[in-house]
């Protein structure tokens, strides 16, 4: 089964082809325009920037949808806009859209209402899109840098808050370190194959089999795996995750836990499946170990967290592990499962973070699990939304999280990794404990303090509505989305 192959029905690709980077161009232009608009409006009107960026995201989404099925390659094959990258671009746009919906209320409450946050989110999205469609190691690397630099700033965006400062600085230092690994790996691959084009690397290796025993190539593969593992927060490269997720402004935590993870997986898949298929035996063994470690470390550490943001940070590590299971399988079912899972994870995780944004107060984030005591009775609708998200994260039907896990694990079984699937299912069962603990507090404990009336802004309500729909609809009728995911990898 050939996945992610260079499409046969490709549009003429010589030279510059702007159609191949249309979504990126649209989104960057809108982000730059918003920077200018930001200068001319006063601080009460910053929410308009949010609405404008939402419109921009919708426009970009239409350009993504219209590109479906008509692959475009451009800039001497340094980008390829195929269905695979379009599916991921859709995922990034969804996560940026949902994030912006919950940003405004948080910024006003924390009094850090600076308009630059919206262009930064859009630029981060541009970086992610370039990572997904890059077919040149340089494009992928620079996309990753655009994404990372935006995220460092977003993590430290709440300047007056010490924890946010710490998150920004920590993320910057460790991120720069891991970028070094990734770049060194790319340099070694370039040194051993003489090209940075992903497809050309594969053809060089297939024509010169001797290079496979070249330590430079092997070391390059390993270093790139380390760099990407950092970005997707896989154990043992996950140490930054809890601190950064806890300290960063909550909407940005939601964004960070979804979009960049998906982008990391997109580039990881593209580079390893397209460029290094000859070393599949080696890297799937490596990913096996990474997947097991990531799932187990994430879940076991999450069990004893009392802060809900930290708990979701460890849970996001565990989810990276589940997705790695599908990646390890390396077959069509597992890889399509990766795509499906990243999209549904965007809905469920950002939805859960939207509730966390709501429960917080200025200066007091109310992040302990015990702060949720009695929440389900005081706010039945919000409690129900939170329960749906938690059920989906735990992988209980009929939520999308269940279908996603089902495909990831069945991909692993089809590829012969039965033990990997068993470990995954056991881990998933353990995770139910900490997700349901929040629900136990929500529905079975009396509130320790009176809940204030929660002000749900319309945009936040829209975010919750979309997230619930995004969790339940693919969970009950997964056919359409799975079909798209399968078309995305096989064409």
């Amino acid at each position, binding site marked *: 089964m050939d996945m992610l192959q260079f499409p046969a029905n490709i549009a003429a690709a010589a030279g510059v082809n702007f159609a191949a980077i249309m979504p990126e161009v649209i989104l960057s232009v809108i982000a730059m325009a918003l920077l200018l608009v930001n200068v001319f409006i006063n601080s009460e009107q910053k929410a308009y920037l949010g609405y404008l960026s939402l419109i921009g995201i919708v426009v970009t989404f239409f350009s993504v949808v219209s590109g479906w099925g008509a692959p475009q390659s451009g800039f001497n094959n340094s980008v390829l806009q195929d269905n695979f990258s379009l599916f991921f671009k859709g995922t990034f746009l969804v996560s940026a859209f949902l994030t912006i919906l919950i940003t405004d209320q948080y910024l006003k409450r924390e009094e850090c209402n600076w308009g630059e946050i919206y262009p930064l989110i859009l630029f981060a999205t541009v970086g992610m899109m*370039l990572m997904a469609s890059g077919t040149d190691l340089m494009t992928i690397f620079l996309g990753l840098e*655009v994404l990372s630099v935006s995220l*460092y700033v977003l993590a430290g965006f709440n300047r007056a808050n010490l924890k946010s400062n710490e998150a920004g600085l920590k993320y910057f230092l460790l991120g720069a370190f891991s970028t070094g690994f990734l770049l060194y790996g790319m340099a070694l691959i370039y040194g051993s194959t*003489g090209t940075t084009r992903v497809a050309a690397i594969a053809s060089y290796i297939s024509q010169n089999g001797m*290079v496979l025993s070249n330590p430079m190539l092997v070391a390059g593969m390993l270093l790139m795996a380390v760099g990407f593992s950092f970005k997707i927060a896989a154990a043992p490269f996950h140490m930054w995750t809890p601190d950064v997720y806890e300290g960063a402004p909550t909407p940005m935590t939601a964004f960070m836990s979804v979009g960049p993870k998906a982008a990391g997986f997109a580039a990881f898949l593209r580079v390893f499946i397209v460029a290094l298929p000859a070393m599949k035996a080696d890297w799937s063994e490596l990913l096996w170990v990474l997947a097991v470690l990531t799932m187990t470390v994430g879940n076991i550490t999450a069990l004893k967290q009392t802060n809900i943001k930290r708990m979701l940070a460890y849970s996001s590590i565990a989810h990276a592990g589940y997705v790695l299971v599908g990646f390890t399988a390396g077959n069509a079912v597992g890889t399509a499962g990766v795509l499906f899972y990243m999209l549904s994870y965007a809905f469920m995780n950002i939805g859960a973070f939207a509730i966390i944004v709501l429960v917080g107060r200025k200066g007091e984030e109310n992040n302990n699990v015990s702060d949720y005591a009695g929440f389900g009775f005081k706010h039945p609708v919000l409690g129900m939304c939170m329960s749906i998200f938690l059920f989906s994260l735990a992988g209980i039907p009929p939520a999308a999280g269940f279908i996603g896990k089902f495909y990831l694990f069945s991909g692993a079984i089809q590829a012969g990794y039965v033990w990997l699937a068993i470990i995954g299912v056991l881990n998933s069962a353990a995770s139910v404990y900490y997700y349901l603990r929040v629900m136990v507090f929500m529905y079975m404990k009396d509130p320790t303090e009176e809940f204030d009336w929660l002000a749900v802004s319309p945009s936040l309500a829209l975010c919750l509505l979309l997230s619930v729909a995004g969790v339940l609809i693919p969970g009950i009728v997964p056919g359409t989305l799975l079909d798209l995911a399968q078309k995305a990898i096989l064409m």
Partner: protein
Amino acid sequence: METIFFTIVAAVTVLSGIMVVTCRNPINSALSLILTFFCIATLYVTLDAPFMAAVQVLVYAGAIMVLIVFVIMLLNIRSEVGRRYTHAGIIGTVVGFLMLVLTFNFLNNSSLTGAKGLITTDVINKIGHTELIARSMFTDFLLPFEITSILLLVAIIGAVILSKKKI
């Protein structure tokens, strides 16, 4: 001759690199970093890449290092760093040593020669190094070149957001 020269320069590069992270006084670290940059520039010259060497000296050893030294002096970090960050030093040493043994084993049993590039010394002498760089930057790597401008824009916004006194 060339091999001996390379060995000396490479050894100085690595040593000064180690000095950067082990020196007690930040100024000494900064000066070692300048030495590292100069050595790398020398390596570029031996690779027939004079333009890269010049840029390396101008941009890194010149502009960036001046900034770093300025910042160190302005912040008045005169006192020595009491203790360098040595979290899990012993474990790190053991793992590092094991990795070193593995790497040596690995390297001993194989050849390191990768793909030979198209741009040999003759080509460079015929066309010119700067022109070759410009050609590949504006043809093959046009898109990465353009993405860099977005990257710099994001970095500027970030610097302003995080450090300007009043936004």
